[in-house]
């Protein structure tokens, strides 16, 4: 009898110890400024996840150096599954465009993606070209006249540079720090073309009719612009890939990865969450950890462009 009681107590003890993850609050490190597109999207998703997981989620903004400050801070934390990194997959290759090595994705365990940002090429409505083909034709007849600015995605700018080289046209290219300055520049007539993610200020302007989308420069299509093609569909070999996702340490427990992944999928299917993003024309969707890493791999291919095209 005593032995039975003891066994029962021990088993009970184990059940109590084996409480499901999460037992503590979770911290999410966002390597960009509060209020930016990654940050505000993360906050909404985290809010819903908090309710499902029944544990507080704290957002920690660590901006700087194209995301590497926050990344370094994340790598220094304990791999216990309670610190999550929020990162766009394109940022793994950003150091390549600065002349350094890409960030090693083996250091991370992917949880899942929650937003795929398709990069769209925009022009003004008064331009003498209304489609991508017309743009190429116009650029060929007017070398050195057109000006392009990136909207914060350096890898997308390189994809565009590749297209320029392939089509042997002469377009001046520069980089802007984000969607906001790019949108201001094109609306003020200082550049003729910009790239911006869906949901960025340029896209918002396009939805209001102030800008016209010509094509997509990343590797996915958009429901709201069904006629736009990706570079791969148009016959070019490179396209950028930007997916916002959650990552854990490579050594974090699998249980944490699984739980977070399931909760993320559940939360992204909720109607209330979708409604919050509806007016920005952005559709968060669940992407599995594998799809997240596939996006990171696609980015590695774009990194080759730096060697190919130079600065």
């Amino acid at each position, binding site marked *: 009898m005593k032995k039975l009681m003891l066994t029962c107590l021990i088993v009970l003890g184990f059940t109590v110890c084996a409480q499901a993850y999460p037992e503590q609050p979770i911290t999410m490190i966002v390597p960009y400024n*509060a209020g930016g597109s990654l940050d505000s999207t993360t906050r909404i998703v985290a809010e819903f996840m908090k309710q499902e997981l029944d544990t507080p989620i704290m957002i920690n903004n660590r901006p700087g150096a194209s995301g590497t400050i926050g990344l370094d801070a994340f790598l220094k934390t304990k791999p216990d599954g309670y610190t999550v990194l929020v990162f766009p997959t394109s940022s793994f290759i950003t150091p390549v465009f600065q002349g350094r090595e890409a960030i090693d994705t083996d250091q991370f365990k992917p949880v899942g993606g929650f937003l795929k940002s398709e990069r769209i090429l925009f022009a003004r409505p008064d331009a003498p070209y209304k489609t991508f083909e017309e743009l190429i034709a116009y650029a060929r007849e007017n070398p050195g006249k057109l000006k392009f600015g990136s909207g914060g995605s350096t890898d997308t700018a390189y994809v565009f540079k590749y297209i320029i080289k392939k089509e042997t046209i002469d377009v*001046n290219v520069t980089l802007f720090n984000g969607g906001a300055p790019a949108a201001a520049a094109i*609306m003020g007539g200082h550049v003729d073309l910009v790239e911006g993610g869906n949901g960025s200020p340029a896209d918002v302007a396009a939805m209001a009719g102030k800008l016209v989308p010509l094509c997509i420069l990343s590797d996915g299509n958009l429901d709201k612009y069904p006629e736009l093609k990706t570079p791969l569909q148009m016959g070019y070999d490179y396209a950028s890939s930007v997916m916002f996702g959650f990552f854990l340490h490579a050594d974090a427990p699998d249980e944490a990865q699984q739980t977070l992944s399931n909760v993320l999928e559940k939360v992204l299917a909720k109607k209330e969450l979708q409604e919050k993003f509806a007016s920005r024309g952005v559709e968060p969707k669940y992407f599995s950890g594998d799809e997240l890493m596939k996006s990171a791999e696609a980015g590695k291919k774009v990194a080759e462009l730096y060697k190919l095209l130079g600065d």
Partner: protein
Amino acid sequence: MTELLNNVAMGMNLLLQWEILFAAAGGVMVGLVMGAVPGLSDIIAICLMVPFTFYLNPVAGIAMIMGLSKGANFGGAIPAILFNIPGTPQAAITAFDGYPLSKQGKAGKALKTALYASCIADGLSDCVLFFFAAPVAMAAIMIGPTEHAAVVIFALTLISITSVSGPIIGICSTLLGLLLSCIGADPLTGAPRLAFGSAELSAGVNIVPMALGFFVVSEIIWQRCMDRRNGLSQKAIYTAQQQKDEDHSFTFAEFKQCAPAIARGTLIGSAIGALPGIGTTVGSYLTYVATKRASKHPEKFGEGALEGIAAAEAGNNACNGPNLIPLITLGIPGNLAAALILGAFTMQGLTPGPMFMEQQAPLLYAIFIVLFFSNFFTLGFGALFTKVMRKMVSVPKNYIYAAVLIFALIGTYIVNNNTFDLFFTFGFSILGVLCRKGGIPMIPLLIAYILGPSLELKIRQTMDLYANDVTIFFTKPISCTFLLLSLIITVYIIYRRSFNVKSEN
């Protein structure tokens, strides 16, 4: 006209909710306190409070963020006037005339001037936001990379040439600021520069640790050194004599004297505020310089001229309202507060953009009205707060210095949760002490440090877009105008100075 009244009526409806009034009042109060504590600035206040705003209704959330800006922009003037330690970087200019006036025992007068100038200029610039958002946005959009670079060159030239210590030293100070701003990330590509392999340096030195070290910690070190050298044994900041000479009144005649400075501050502050990426410090300093030029007694500036205080405070507070113009008319945030307000709108499912003003007119009118009335909160709380803070001058200096030092270090750490930033604060404090000792003006260095990355970025973008054709700066009309203005002012001021020197001989 009826439609305007209709929208205003609907706006006022939205306004008369306790949540919104509390959010505005709360924002102003917290902003005042955070601005007044030299370690905590408006940037930190906004970053800390922003998560709360996401869960309030949009008008309340925005009222809170803007209240923080308004409160902090005035709050920073309080320690600047009382102790020569600016609570926010932009208040450093208020200290030029505020502190000398305070040493004459007239702290109350200085504080009242700062308060009224701040609130009136802020209120007027909110009216600019309300009535002129659309045309101002149209003008602001004409400023592309080329024009922006020319405007920054103009601002830096003006700031260096008009320096009290002389144009050459002013230019040196500016150039040093530009050099220091190169540390960190390349503004175009983000590649690390002058980082010596350190991850912390590759992000650059954030303005908060820089300003805290350069102005606040260095001031404490300097005052201690001066006290020891002068053998001052007094405990409190003010001598008994000064406390007897106290004059804390602010008469209507004095107000009339300051009115032109306030008007100038409103205009310049609104223009600077509407342009993305220039900032309140520049607005404050340009107004100060313009007012000094226009004054009949420029030699009084720096010794306690009321117009100097009014100009500096009007210049920085007038930037607040117009900061929102690019955001609400085009969906483009021009500064941190606007970017966070964009985030707050997004959380509520709203999307600022070109159609925003038409689609959300009642909401925007409600926001304008709240902003305007928030200035009364600033006035009320500010008056109470300054009355309390004035008592601080009887507190023994050592306690004040110790408290300020602790807050400065906390403020440095809060920005990035990074202990390495404390080294930056110490490093810049040494630089600050050296500048004070060597008579090198500190404001040009600060402003050059703030504007440096932006200047380089715009010049490089221009070169990228125009295939390295430098003459583009002169072929584009707006850019050419500003560069010519810079040249004209430089020539004029150097001519005037050499003329003065000749006439003295």
